[in-house]
């Protein structure tokens, strides 16, 4: 049909993204995703404001550990996780509920291209929301330190490196959870079931056999976090929540990045195959 299929596919992906990005970023139903992303920013801002008011700046090392704990236990496991549920589950399931998916299916677009276009839309939107959140969190947490401490940490210390690593982990988390929940939206009618199943599996991934850990998104993400969460500082010894932050067999950075990308790609290929065979039957939705 086309002499230059890649050119056509690029153009079709862009057309899908134009439609989807607007829906994801500007939808009133997606407001709670922004709230999830901004919650840590508000907490850190309140903390900084409180310290400034008291005139007692904290220990920057302690705040760095607090950031690591909030990032791993709240931001990754709840904010990004449920944010991706809201964004990616709706890419197909939401359109089935609104009975508008057939418009895509009636266009001369390969279903694989449609999956790619929708996934990239969700990914860009999630990256924008949660990536911005991470940068704002850093700013909100460290703004109450004096200029010399900040300069020492960011310019001469690990500050910028940590920020880059957290942004990178955030983007990978969006890709990993995004692919999983896009697939869940294709496979399941009730989004609650896959969400709870994935949430549980991610929570107990540290206790799973090593092979199964490689099928977990959080396994790779924890391996890439720049600061380990010291359980005794953050939660106290013996607190079962501390187990969520522990990664008994961390993967190397290269393995973690490659592993997560391979996992996401495999899930997307699987989704494409399912979407290729998907029928429009709104009556059963």
């Amino acid at each position, binding site marked *: *049909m086309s002499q230059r299929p890649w050119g056509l596919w690029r153009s079709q992906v862009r057309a899908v993204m134009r439609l989807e990005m607007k829906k994801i970023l500007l939808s009133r139903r997606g407001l709670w995703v922004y709230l999830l992303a901004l919650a840590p920013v508000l907490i850190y801002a309140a903390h900084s404001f409180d310290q400034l008011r008291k005139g007692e700046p904290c220990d920057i090392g302690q705040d760095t550990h607090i950031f690591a704990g909030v990032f791993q236990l709240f931001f990754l496991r709840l904010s990004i996780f449920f944010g991706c549920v809201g964004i990616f589950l709706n890419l197909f399931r939401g359109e089935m509920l*609104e009975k508008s998916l057939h418009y895509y299916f009636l266009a001369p677009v390969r279903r694989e291209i449609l999956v790619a276009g929708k996934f990239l839309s969700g990914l860009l939107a999630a990256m924008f929301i949660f990536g911005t959140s991470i940068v704002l969190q850093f700013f909100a947490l460290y703004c109450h330190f004096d200029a010399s401490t900040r300069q020492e940490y960011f310019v001469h210390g690990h500050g910028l490196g940590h920020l880059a690593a957290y942004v990178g982990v955030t983007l990978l988390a969006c890709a990993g959870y995004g692919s999983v929940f896009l697939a869940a939206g294709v496979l399941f009618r009730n989004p609650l079931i896959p969400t709870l199943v994935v949430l549980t599996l991610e929570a107990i991934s540290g206790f799973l056999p090593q092979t199964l850990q490689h099928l977990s998104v959080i396994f790779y993400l924890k391996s890439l976090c720049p600061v380990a969460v010291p359980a005794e500082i953050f939660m106290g010894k013996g607190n079962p929540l501390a187990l969520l932050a522990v990664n008994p067999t961390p993967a190397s950075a290269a393995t973690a990045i490659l592993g997560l990308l391979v996992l996401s790609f495999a899930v997307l290929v699987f989704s494409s195959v399912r979407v290729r065979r998907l029928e429009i039957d709104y009556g059963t939705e």
Partner: protein
Amino acid sequence: MNETSVNTGADHRSGGSSDRQIVFEDVSKFYGDVLGVNRVNLSIPPGITSLVGPNGSGKTTLMNLMTGLVRPTRGRISVLGMAPDEPERLFHEVGYCTQFDSFPRGLTGYQFVYSYLRLFGYRHARAADLATQAIERVSLADAANRKIAGYSKGMRQRIKLAQALCHNPSVLVLDEPLNGLDPLIRAETIALFRTLAQAGLHLIISSHVLHEVDVISDQVVLLSNGYVVAEGPIHSVRDEIEEHPMQILIRCNKPDELASRVFQQNCVVEARLHADGRGVLVKARDADRFYLMLNHIAQNGISIESVAPADDDVLSVYEYLVGTEESTK
């Protein structure tokens, strides 16, 4: 995207004739245990083909099958030589106006059609031109920049029609396309269908408004409970129903005299005066033979004004066929 790579309907229409039909070969579709359609064998030529049947008879299922929205449980479908499960090829040639009354949120009528065209790979200028043309064709130019959410039922129907025909397809599949249209727009839309059919397009139209089908169709496919009961030009279908004698209404100046003469003919089963007293309603087993005799009968001062079949419309044919089918079960 290189626009020359977009395969237009016009290009395809100039091709050979071997793949010019829509073919169903022993097609069945079950939704779990529920029958959609069963053992459908059809070959649909260009022109206007109406799918006729009550709700649940399988009209929409047939349309969804030929556009790949659902897949057959058994059998094979070919649309101009293409399989419906290859949307990337099929929808350069096919436009489908579905019965679903739902739209992507927040779009104006123009954006709806334009964004669909961008999915084809058309560049902005080309997509904008085609969208504008399609919207003008369905007489919706004035409302093109209003949000679809504020459209009336008839306007929503028309914008869906504009989307289905905006890329100049060779096959237009239209599920109840006249629903919600006011009489003027209805007439304009039927005229548009006629124009498209004369240009060599396949128009597959479903309707349960049978008198409309009579006006529109070149051929009909009658469906009942998922089965194809009959197919073909409506007059041919009627001719094949032998158990119901053909009804013919003859308008003349002496109906009672004509009735008595007509009744003496062997091929006539029944002859009775029309309710308005200005004609005779004849039931004839062999209509062709009756027409030949009529000139001979109508002499001696009987002046015939008109002769017209009274039951070779879709409604009568459907009643005969579906009634017969159901009575045999």
